[in-house]
């Protein structure tokens, strides 16, 4: 511990008004969080009570209101991760590195969730948990790509090295998504499988409204999660930087034996 910071810490405890927030929350994110919670409650009400069962899918249509928004927003996160990676290579700022990594991590969670919910939905619909459906397959491959990105981020403690490595993997995420989706779609369409699934059933009216609303609410939730994840990573880097200042002091105080 160096004296430089030891002085500041008690002040932050005594005078919370001067001390800034005690966590990753802020006024903005609290409003956002509240909106998201209200939105989720509204979607849940619409999904379970207000909307009827689908004529094709029966009650399982109610899972669509979770599944489709989550996977859509996961793709949005990949787009943001790629943009953040390109911006990092261009601007070379920690800010963009953390934008990319936070979005990618939230996306990875959502992709994983998509797989689980997709399988839960598949069982009553197809009778099995997994079929080699184009969308399910490409989601799996994308999930693995995102895990690879996360693994790259853990390969270095140096923010600059970490940023460069992951930015190059990150900027290839979007091209990979396009190539994977294209190839898997062609693959399945070649085999002329019977239409097991119409993920775009002709939903309309209140069902359509519920779906659109759910996508919007999930996007809000994504922003909330990504902003908090960003701030967490930011704090982690500050902590690392302080440890580094101490380490340099320690090293300089080594003397000739």
């Amino acid at each position: 511990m160096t004296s430089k910071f030891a002085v500041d810490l008690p002040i932050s405890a005594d005078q919370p008004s001067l001390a800034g927030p005690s966590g990753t929350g802020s006024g903005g994110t609290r409003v956002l969080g509240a909106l998201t919670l209200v939105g989720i409650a509204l979607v849940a009400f619409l999904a379970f009570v207000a909307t009827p069962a689908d004529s094709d899918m029966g009650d399982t249509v109610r899972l669509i209101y979770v599944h489709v928004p989550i996977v859509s927003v996961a793709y949005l996160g990949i787009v943001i991760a790629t943009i953040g990676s390109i911006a990092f290579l261009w601007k070379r700022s920690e800010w963009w590195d953390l934008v990319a990594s936070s979005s990618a991590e939230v996306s990875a969670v959502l992709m994983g969730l998509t797989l689980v919910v997709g399988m839960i939905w598949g069982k009553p619909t197809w009778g099995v948990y997994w079929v080699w459906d184009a969308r399910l397959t490409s989601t799996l491959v994308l999930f693995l790509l995102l895990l690879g990105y996360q693994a790259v981020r853990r390969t270095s403690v140096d923010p600059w090295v970490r940023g460069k490595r992951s930015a190059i993997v990150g900027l290839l995420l979007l091209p990979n998504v396009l190539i994977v989706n294209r190839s898997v779609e062609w693959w399945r369409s070649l085999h002329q499988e019977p239409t097991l699934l119409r993920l775009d059933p002709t939903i309309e009216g209140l069902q359509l409204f519920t779906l659109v609303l759910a996508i919007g609410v999930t996007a809000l939730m994504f922003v909330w999660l990504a902003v908090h994840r960003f701030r967490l990573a930011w704090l982690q880097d500050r902590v690392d930087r302080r440890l580094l200042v101490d380490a340099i002091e320690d090293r300089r105080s080594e003397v000739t034996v």
Partner: protein
Amino acid sequence: MFRDAALVAGKDLRIELRSRVAINQVLPLAVLLLVLFAFALDPDTGLLVRATPGLFWIATVLCGLLAVQRAFAVETADGVTDGLRLSALDTGGLFLGKAAAVALQLIVLQALLLAGVVVLYDAAPSGWLMLVVTCGTATAGIAAAGTLFGVLAAGVRVRETLLPLLLLPVLAPVLLAATRAFEAAFEGRSSEGWPWVGLLAAFALVYIVAGLFGFGALLEES
């Protein structure tokens, strides 16, 4: 850039010729894979012949992974990476040279694998133009992506596990596309294969461009 690429590719191929790792270990492994596939899929039911294109490309991708690992094991031993960084070699040329050396080894391997499936699986390839073009574009993509992620993983302690985790999902579409193109060629429906070849070419292009620009930054940190 191309002069440097030729220098590096020549050096890598010379190392492979002298060390004989590719010839003594990777090629036998490819043959071994063909034998193991035959054990796993009963040869009498015709399953093996139908699965031949897929097995061919699985063997190619796995051996490609080994070739990339080998290509960067050579560069990380004994501080050689520092030597490369202290050189005046163009990093784009370095990337092209290493990728070209990997690609050439893979082409030789594929020729052997093709002979292998004809002899061992009684496969009857046809549509040679399609086969050759598919091998060319798929190999370019595998070598380019492998070289890019290879240099990334080279600087990392956990490289043996990181490289497959990064590379194999990325190569999944290549495996898929090359297999479909081969199936089309084998069954004499070459015209159905061309969209897949286009996909392979797009993939190769993306990774060659990414490698030309990204290789230097990654070499810096490895």
